[in-house]
């Protein structure tokens, strides 16, 4: 069966104002709204569109994380994924661990395409897709803003610093999504009900044979330095004068 595997991550919702815990041990997540990482929603949307075009038959969504991640998997099922895979893991999950777990799922499911968000908006690491592609020894096309499947390969337009780059990659491949790939659909209420009945399989890192190794110790979290509040000027002339005084014009 032609499958697309989508990796998602449960993150603090992008609208939440992040506050660092006073003891520097992390950021405050108690009672904070959690969501599917926005880039991963784009990944899922793309997978759903591929299936709707008839280029794939099944969309599988997967995550690695604690029990609560099942909420986000259910959201993904409500969006339209056919089934979900949850690799249960607590504590810090580094990109290498996540990628190793996803690779095990890939070996089970044999997808023709794996789509992930380009980065998670919590740790902003931006690594998992590339690490996975390296471990799998398959192509990667990161920062995708356009994806066309052409039989045994994919043509991917990437948002790079210079502009737009197009790559051709043989399938299977790992794609990571940028913002403008698509606009994810909204979840409808009846679909939330239906999603409750869709299959959700759970694994653990150890049943998959993945060692949960943390290679980077998180020493200290701090709030960023604040910029000093500036001044208001009343018109363009005053602005130009102020900039000239600072030697900026």
């Amino acid at each position, binding site marked *: 069966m032609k499958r697309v595997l989508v990796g998602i991550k449960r993150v603090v919702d992008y609208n939440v104002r992040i506050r660092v815990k006073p003891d520097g041990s992390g950021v405050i997540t108690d009672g904070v709204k959690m969501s599917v990482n926005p880039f991963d929603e784009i990944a899922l949307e793309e997978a759903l569109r591929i299936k709707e075009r008839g280029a794939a038959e099944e969309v599988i969504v997967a995550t690695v994380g604690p029990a609560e991640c099942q909420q986000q998997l259910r959201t993904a099922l409500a969006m339209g994924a056919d089934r979900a895979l949850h690799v249960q893991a607590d504590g810090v999950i580094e990109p290498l661990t996540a990628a190793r777990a996803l690779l095990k799922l890939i070996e089970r499911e044999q997808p023709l395409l794996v789509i992930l968000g380009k980065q998670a908006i919590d740790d902003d690491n931006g690594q998992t897709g590339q690490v996975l592609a390296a471990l799998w020894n398959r192509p990667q096309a990161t920062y995708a803003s356009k994806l066309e499947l052409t039989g045994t390969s994919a043509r991917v337009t990437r948002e790079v610093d210079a502009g737009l780059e197009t790559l051709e990659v043989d399938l299977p491949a790992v794609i990571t999504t940028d*913002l403008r790939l698509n606009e994810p659909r909204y979840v409808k209420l009846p679909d939330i009900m239906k999603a409750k009945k869709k299959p959700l399989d759970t694994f653990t890192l150890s049943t998959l044979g993945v060692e949960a190794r943390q290679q980077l110790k998180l020493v200290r979290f701090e709030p960023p330095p604040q910029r*000093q509040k500036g001044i208001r000027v009343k018109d363009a002339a005053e602005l130009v004068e102020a900039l000239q005084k600072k030697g900026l014009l």
Partner: protein
Amino acid sequence: MSAKILIVAEHDGAKLNPSTAKCVTCARALAGAEITVVVCAASAAAVAAQAAQLAGVTGVLTLENPANAHALAALLAPQIVAIAGPFSHVLGPSTTFGKDLMARIAGLLGAPQVSDIMAIESPTRFRRPIYAGNAILTVESSGEGKVVGTVRTASFEAAGGGGTAAIEAAQANVELPTHTRFVSVSAARSDRPDLQTAARVISGGRALGSAEGFKILYSLADKLGAAVGASRAAVDAGYAPNEMQVGQTGKIIAPELYMAIGISGAIQHLTGIKDARTIVAINKDSEAPIFEVADLGLVGDLFQIVPEIERLIGK
């Protein structure tokens, strides 16, 4: 043991990208570090010569291969891993080139990657922004094995010249995959300064209203010798191309002067500009969050103010 740092050069085949000189400055924070720059190219001589001149660089390696004409991570990563043996750290810039490549190298090495390094405190201790810059995290590696990193270029000045490092051809005896092929790159040709290194940047937001509306920014930018940027909203709306996007998911920049015009200042945008020396905000909404970070704020109609600024500086 002093650090042996390998920096992967970013270049366009002819010119070394300034991001590499910023990686060198980052690496120089470690006293006594040996700093080697590796240039992967079809023909590396010109870029290698530029890398050899960077102050602090102790050696330059070239990996020449016709397949390196375009920087494809799947092809470059195994070559760099093949020569990475003696090094304690492998660094690249936190640009789309470096972010794409370095994590693939980390994957092949099974090594941890520190993304967006804003400071190196010791060979094992690094600081980096998370949550779109809303928190700064200090991480520590074990000291065993290699550390891969991407360097947040906005946090570092470019290393100066005057270096005289030796250039040596390296060999990577690895079979390169054929599963990834370069097709094309379309970059808007612009005579304006590069957004990532420009001393002055003028950015526009959704309030510009159209691609046509951006023309007043281009006009002012040309008068100031400034680069032009855009908010995500403006890029999403099609007013400006993607390479102009400034912010968490676009470019992170640190110009001397940043003028945010008709940009409300979403946190994702602010994270891309908070290292700018002076921030100017022009917005008709006096409550816009951009004013909280602006050194100079002006409330008003940008379509009147921007042309007026241009007239005033033209005098």
